[in-house]
């Protein structure tokens, strides 16, 4: 099987998804689809920042090399060790296990979008993909300094090998990729390169959008991941599959639950980078680029994938719709500590009817695979990304935004927690010049000035007027108002979810968000990440209204995912 076919975007140059509609001006391909991607096998370390450097890379400068102080660079690359395979990489790291700077503790996690698709005579002919995420750290429990993304077999130089490594000195992640079938390693940039042109959204930063490790299916039940919620058994892969080779036994036996990857590795990594970033960005000289922060409040710079806890095929009587389909629950509820428990259940018969009506299916369009029905866990949907949530939280905690102002902003078009054009339009009130973090000349103050001026000009129904009214509420009252509006929405959705049309509508809503994900997000690397439907990819988006109805979204420019 072709490794390239399995992982079309895992080796730069990243290929155009010619089967997808829609403009993609940010792509910067310098080779066309299908062209050879191999480079000479010259062991060494080169720089290759996509959007800046040529595909073959360039010599890394002495200054860049000096600034690489992560364990991969320190222990291997700067010492002339250039592993070709995962096994060689691990063996090389193991040589330093006794050193104070070593990273001896290893964790292994599996992810496979094929992991729960039954292996039978029909599906056996499709190549099944499974990826490893390996981490290495100094301590047995806790932070990882190296995160490796790869696939079995671990002794094959033709398998992609990508590393994000934490540099404690410079407080950044460095991103590396081993060249295809070579011992050439490419430094693809650091976390700061994710945040601004010409490298933002390019190369590794098309999925590591804000410069930190990413776990798309971050929360329980960790769809597609091996976890305490679901096993990815070897029996679901054909006997000849690389995962079933003896060489992979050690990884299989060591595989741990994704809940540990979420809580001990990825979430702390995102927080670690965010804290380091904000310490620098919120310095005494002011915020040089307020837009870079506020876009993570007002837009969804990236997304994660949530799902119901219930399996799509089971005897469980109801499906609990992921709350983040309806509201930005994880962010908003941080500011509403007394919010009531919200659960919206769709009776299973209505869920199954909606699945059938919308002809929900799993597909791998490149392989020609299609299977009727939902993903293993029901109602998978894109939701606000943890890396955006953490920024909102940090800005409030540091006093840059008040909880009330953050809530006021998030309550604009709150029924559409991602990809809201109305909320994104508020970016026009973000200063385009350096501004103080706090105080009367601070970011919030400047934004409020602009919003208040606009409210005066645009009438009572504008987003700006809504914010001004919200900000006039007293402490206690604004929380109650936000809770009232969220509760009213959920009341309405809860009632409709028990009807045939309502269940179909909320699945249409999920489907609309899935289509937008596939169309607009470079993170949409694998078709099987989210189900398809009978609705055409290019069909108009729908949105949720506060009365619980789902309607076609007015024609506006789709908010930028960048």
């Amino acid at each position, binding site marked *: 099987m072709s490794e390239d076919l399995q992982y079309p975007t895992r080796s730069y140059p990243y290929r155009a998804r010619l089967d997808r509609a829609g403009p993609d001006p940010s792509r910067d391909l310098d080779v066309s689809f299908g062209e050879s991607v191999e480079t000479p096998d010259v062991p060494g370390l080169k720089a290759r920042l996509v959007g800046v450097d040529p595909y073959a890379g360039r010599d890394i400068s002495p200054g860049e090399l000096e600034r690489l102080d992560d364990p991969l660079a320190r222990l291997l690359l700067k010492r002339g060790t250039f592993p070709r395979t995962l096994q060689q990489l691990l063996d090389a790291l193991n040589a330093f296990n006794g050193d104070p700077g070593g990273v001896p503790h290893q964790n292994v996690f599996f992810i496979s979008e094929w992991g*729960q698709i*039954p292996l039978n005579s029909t599906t056996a002919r499709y190549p099944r993909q499974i990826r490893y995420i390996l981490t290495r750290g100094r301590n*047995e*429990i*806790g*932070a990882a300094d190296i995160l490796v993304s790869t696939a079995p077999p671990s002794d094959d130089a033709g398998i992609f090998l990508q590393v994000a490594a934490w540099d404690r000195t410079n407080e950044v992640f460095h991103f590396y990729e081993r060249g295809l079938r070579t011992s050439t390693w490419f430094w693809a940039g650091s976390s700061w390169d994710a945040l601004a042109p010409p490298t933002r959204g390019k190369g590794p930063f098309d999925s590591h959008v804000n410069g930190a490790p990413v776990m798309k299916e971050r929360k329980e039940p960790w769809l597609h991941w091996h976890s*305490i*919620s*679901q*096993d990815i*058994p070897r*029996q*679901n892969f054909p006997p000849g599959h690389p995962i079933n080779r003896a060489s992979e036994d050690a990884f299989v*036996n060591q595989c*741990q*639950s994704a*809940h*540990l990857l979420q*809580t*001990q590795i990825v*979430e*702390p990594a995102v*927080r*670690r980078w965010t804290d380091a970033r904000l310490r620098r960005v919120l310095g005494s000289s002011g915020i040089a680029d307020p837009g870079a922060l506020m876009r993570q409040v007002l837009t969804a710079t990236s997304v994660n994938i949530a799902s119901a806890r219930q*399996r799509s095929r*089971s*005897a469980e*009587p*109801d499906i*609990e719709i992921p709350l983040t389909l309806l509201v930005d629950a994880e962010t908003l*509820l*941080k500011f*509403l*500590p*007394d*919010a*009531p*428990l*919200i*659960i919206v259940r769709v009776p299973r018969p209505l869920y199954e009817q909606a699945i059938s009506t919308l002809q929900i299916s799993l597909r791998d369009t490149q392989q020609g695979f299609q299977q009727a029905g939902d993903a293993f866990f029901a109602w998978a949907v894109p939701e606000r990304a943890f890396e955006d949530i953490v920024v909102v*939280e*940090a800005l409030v*905690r540091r006093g840059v935004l008040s909880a009330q102002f953050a809530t006021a902003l998030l309550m604009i078009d709150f029924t559409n927690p991602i990809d809201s054009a109305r909320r994104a339009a508020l970016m026009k009130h973000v200063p385009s010049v350096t501004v103080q973090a706090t105080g009367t000349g601070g970011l919030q103050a400047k934004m409020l000035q602009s919003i208040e001026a606009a409210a005066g000009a645009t009438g009572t129904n504008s987003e700006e007027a809504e914010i001004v009214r919200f900000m006039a509420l007293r402490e206690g009252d604004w929380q109650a108002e936000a809770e009232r509006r969220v509760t009213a929405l*959920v009341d309405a959705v*809860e009632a409709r979810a028990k009807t045939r049309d309502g269940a179909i509508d909320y699945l249409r809503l999920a489907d609309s968000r899935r289509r937008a994900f596939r169309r607009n997000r470079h993170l949409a690397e694998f078709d099987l990440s989210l189900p398809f439907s009978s609705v055409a990819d290019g069909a108009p988006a729908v949105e949720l209204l506060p009365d619980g109805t789902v309607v076609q979204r007015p024609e506006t420019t789709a908010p930028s995912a960048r």
Partner: protein
Amino acid sequence: MAPLTFTPPGYLEDLDAAGRQAWHQLISDLMDRAKTGDPTIPFNAPRPQFFNPAQIDIGPGAATEDVQWTAFPRVVALQSATDHQRWKKADSSREVQDEYCEWSVKRNAENKITTIVFTCEGPEYWRLLARHNPAKVLELYRTHVDPSVAHDDLFDSDGRYIARNRWNDSVSSGAMHLIQRNNTLGDEVEIAGAASIVRSKADGSLMTDTRELIECGQYGVIERNSDPVIGARVNYHARNRSDVTIADPVGVYFAGLDTQRWATPDGTDPGTFWRYTRGDRGRYVRAVLEVPADKPYVLGDVTIDGNPIQFGGQVADFIQMTIRAVAARIGQSTAKPLQGCVDAAGMAGLSAQAFARRPSRRG
């Protein structure tokens, strides 16, 4: 290797020779019961792949797996809208702390937390210890809970040990060992036994899904963190045609505390505030979290993700619990998968929580 003698949990040395023998027998009996299951309940037995290592040698080439789960009670999380709500609820009663980890919180006059004590010692051990050495029980309470504990606080007029005594039944006056009704070694061993049954579905394929297994096998509480994953991992090894059991010393242990998201006022590593006070050789059964007395701050001044520690539940989020499963004679089992599921109605003592739906909104 000869069949083994079960060691007290955590390698504790409270028991004398007679006590250790009694402990060995207790665990061996639990193992035998878990091996037998209940043949009167369809598809609850037989359990050909589960074994009692005191009767049958583990043998060479066995593998172990440290099954881990988060100590914060998942059932509480499912019933709460916000972090603050779930932490508060988890701290409200030992009855909701059902992940084989219970805790008690001490606060100062400013209501700031100064100390949190976590325990995962099973009640069976303490009942046995109380029978063999009541003086030792008193001594341990005085050492680990409060020096003023009196004999009559722990024993009734007939000399029977009171597990839910005033020093061990709340979230504020101390926690010596587990008391929540599902937090028993007996349950843990039974889960391993029940989950060792390899099951096939109607189409002949093996059942592998975590939830499907616990629903079909009717072991433990579905919505906990612990029971489903313990069962899933034991079953995984059974599906690999291994004989399975639980490693000695049988028990639930603390796998560790992750403090990387914590911050202290003076930059001290918060991990140094966590110490194990009972257990040995990586099998720890009691932990205390507190700031040394010479520091000018208390635990309540330490932050997690920027939030001061106000609840023991906040800490439980970062504790992993573990049991060690053993897979022996790997690949050699000839046991045939069982096709069929345990009937829930036929399970005496089935926990009502096993099928409990979450409360409707505003619960």
